[in-house]
């Protein structure tokens, strides 16, 4: 093996984190960055709710309120929810499919850093004093050069463009990983449900994000170079933006919710100690939801005036999605049915998810009825609906997944008492905040308006809603306390801390060594690890002899490339062409270096593996 003995610099400390290409560390980076933006978005939400606590409140002005709702929506969806999903994907997927890493470790790191650069760019708008304020959908002409002068919307466009590159890279990477890197014996129909969900999600990312890219480019051209895509006066069309945004935007909400479905499937099955009910129907339902997800975008535009034929078609297509989703709900219920359920924090979040998400789904079908939608449109009913599916679905799923996989990611179990306290405060707070908003919407409170007059029966319900928002905030703080407490707890964690682990990640140490599997496992069934345990085996049968393990080398280039893009975006926005070109030169120069200098990686020899090289 002398020919392979490339010596590669191994970094330590901060440099290790900046240069890492290890999917487990990148997962942690995603979690930290996503968690940070989640706190920012949450703070914005609290400020919005304080403003709405009583009629004619003047806590924040109308302009600030517009900025808060815009940044809250954008931050939560693109910078908090998706990165936290990417955190779980990175932490879990290679382990679940029995792989040593993702297909493209370098691109994985690039994906993280571009997302982070985009997120930081969007949020420095707070310091620049030019904050996006056209709503998270940035509808034109409101977001066009005429009505949104200044650079606020530019921050939105450039930030999302750069973050979108990272997301697209991640999608391609995980699709390729799941197709090509599965352990011997792991056929598609033996993949854990979470892996399936991420596979389909990644496909949605690959086919939906380019649409957003084009939309952002078109609006950027309109704003920076006086192009006319959406300038009605020059022949442009504002409805075109709505179409482009929602052709991307609707698959985006499935990008958010499908991974949560995957998490729930794993958690429900593990903590019921039962095989997931209806596994193949689950897979089929996921695929169907994803496919239909591309065919329903215009249900966001019923009131635009597309006409009865289009409204009818999109109405029916939307209602159809309830069918595969219902299949999933019943499958979870039947998995729970007759199981010996243990109510851990992870399982509480999963069980709380089911009725909450059903409520969001039911209001979804209500909104799909086009004539009725004319009444609900732009009221708090819509706000309640999408918070039920996104918070009640996705955020519950993320909390569930974090409690479930925390021991695998960090080698510490989260405190169960604090976990349950998190669940109950968050769960009660959530329903308090949003259940009542259905009725606020039905009696006519419009969304996105900074205040309201007294005497419309809005007052009490808004006050209750705000109290609920504070409870959710307390729940989040309890989770952070839990993280700190668990970090202080030095007790080592077993490989399979829940003792009922079913998939491959529970067959290796917590946290896993940097090469994950000393020998790639041989997968002999669905729920591979569970079945080996049933046969009395204490480890997975190996599919290969012990040998040197090839690892990719760390690299600083992804970070440099992202900084280049970041600088270029600022340069374009503020007309400093030199900065813009300089930034692009840095980015393309890094690509050049990456192409010219081959990454031979390095090998971890069996003796070293014995010493246990930990991540």
């Amino acid at each position: 093996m002398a020919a392979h003995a490339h010596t590669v610099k191994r970094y330590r400390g901060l440099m290790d984190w900046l240069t890492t290409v290890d999917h487990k560390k990148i997962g942690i980076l995603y979690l930290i960055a996503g968690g940070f933006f989640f706190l920012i978005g949450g703070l914005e939400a609290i400020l919005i709710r304080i403003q709405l606590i009583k009629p004619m409140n003047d806590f924040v002005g109308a302009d600030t309120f517009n900025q808060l709702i815009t940044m809250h929506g954008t931050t939560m969806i693109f910078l908090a929810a998706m990165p936290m999903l990417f955190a779980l994907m990175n932490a879990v997927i290679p382990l679940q499919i029995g792989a040593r890493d993702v297909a493209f470790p370098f691109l994985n790191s690039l994906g993280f850093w571009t997302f982070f650069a985009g997120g930081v760019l969007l949020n420095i708008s707070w310091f620049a004093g030019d904050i996006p304020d056209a709503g998270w959908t940035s509808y034109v002409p409101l977001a066009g050069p005429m009505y949104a002068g200044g650079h606020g919307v530019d921050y939105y466009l450039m930030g999302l463009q750069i973050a979108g590159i990272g997301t697209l890279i991640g999608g391609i990477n995980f699709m390729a990983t799941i197709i090509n890197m599965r352990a011997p014996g792991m056929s598609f129909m033996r993949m854990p449900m979470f892996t399936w969900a991420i596979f389909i999600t990644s496909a949605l990312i690959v086919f939906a994000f380019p649409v957003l890219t084009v939309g952002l480019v078109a609006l950027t051209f309109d704003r920076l170079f006086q192009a006319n895509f959406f300038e009605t006066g020059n022949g442009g069309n504002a409805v075109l933006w709505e179409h482009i945004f929602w052709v991307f935007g609707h698959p985006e909400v499935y990008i958010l919710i499908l991974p949560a479905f995957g998490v729930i499937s794993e958690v429900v099955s593990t903590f019921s100690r039962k095989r997931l009910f209806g596994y193949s129907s689950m897979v089929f339902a996921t695929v169907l939801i994803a496919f239909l997800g591309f065919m329903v975008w215009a249900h966001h535009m019923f009131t635009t005036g597309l006409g009865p034929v289009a409204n009818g078609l999109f109405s029916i297509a939307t209602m159809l999605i309830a069918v595969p989703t219902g299949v999933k709900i019943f499958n979870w219920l039947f998995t729970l049915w007759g199981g010996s359920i243990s109510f851990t924090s992870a399982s509480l979040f999963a069980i709380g998810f089911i009725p909450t998400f059903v409520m969001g789904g039911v209001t979804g079908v209500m909104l799909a009825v086009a004539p009725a939608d004319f009444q609900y449109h732009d009221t708090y009913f819509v706000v309640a609906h999408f918070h039920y599916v996104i918070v009640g679905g996705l955020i519950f799923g993320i909390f569930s997944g974090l409690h479930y996989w925390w021991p695998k990611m960090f080698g510490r179990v989260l405190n169960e008492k604090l976990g349950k306290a998190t669940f109950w405060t968050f769960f009660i707070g959530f329903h308090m905040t949003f259940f009542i908003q259905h009725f606020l919407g039905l009696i006519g409170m419009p969304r996105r308006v900074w205040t309201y007059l007294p005497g419309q029966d809005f007052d009490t319900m808004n006050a209750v809603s705000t109290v609920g928002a504070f409870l959710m905030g307390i729940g989040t703080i309890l989770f952070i306390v839990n993280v700190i407490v668990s970090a202080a707890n030095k007790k080592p964690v077993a490989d399979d801390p829940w003792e009922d682990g079913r998939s491959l990640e529970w067959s290796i140490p917590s946290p896993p060594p940097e090469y994950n599997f000393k020998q790639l496992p041989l997968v002999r069934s669905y729920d591979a690890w569970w079945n080996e345990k049933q046969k009395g085996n204490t480890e997975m049968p190996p599919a290969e002899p012990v040998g040197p393990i090839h690892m990719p080398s760390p690299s600083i280039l992804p970070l440099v490339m992202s900084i280049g893009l970041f600088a270029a975006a600022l340069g374009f926005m503020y007309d400093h062409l030199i900065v813009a070109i300089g930034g692009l030169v840095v980015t393309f120069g890094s690509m050049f270096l990456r192409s010219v200098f081959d990454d031979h990686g390095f090998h971890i020899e069996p003796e070293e593996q014995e010493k246990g090289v930990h991540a």
Partner: protein
Amino acid sequence: MSAHDHHLDGHLPHEPEKATLEGRNKILGFWLFLGAETVLFGTLFAAFIALRHQVLDGPTADHLFELPMVFAATMILLVSSLASVFAVQALHQHKVKAMIVWLIITILLGLSFLGLEIYEFNTYVSEGHKLTTSAFSSSFYTLVGFHGAHVAFGVLWIGLLIAQIFKKGLTVVTAPKIYVSAIYWHFIDVVWVFIFTVVYLMGKVG
């Protein structure tokens, strides 16, 4: 699993681009990227189709486009695509010299396509068809310009790969890069098929 089985020495396998897992990952990942590119160009096409009649005071498509020039550009790209497929064939037969020759032909044709496009855009601008003229002109320049940028990137990329082949030779590391760049080049040609059909020919028909 890794680059062990066919390392940089000894015989190259018949299809060196698929000899390693890294190579196979690269090809698969690139195809998925092309799936994304399909949607990217599809969205640009959709925007163009929606806005194609919004000419305002600017020159119309019928007035602007000259079919002989479009036909020449089409032929250049088509022949370059053939050159690039011959390069891949030479790659499979391990004929490094032939491969380099075909790749050089590919980028020369790519460069002449770019030259023609710059000349064309220049003419249009002088006729009063600028990015800011109308919704039609904005969507035209964005769609055709995105394609042109892809050609330019391809030329630079393949040029860089030729340099790498000179330096490193044909190996299981360089072969996937060549193969993937060829797929990219064909994809650019495929997009052009729709551009000359939808933008130019349909623009002429009206």
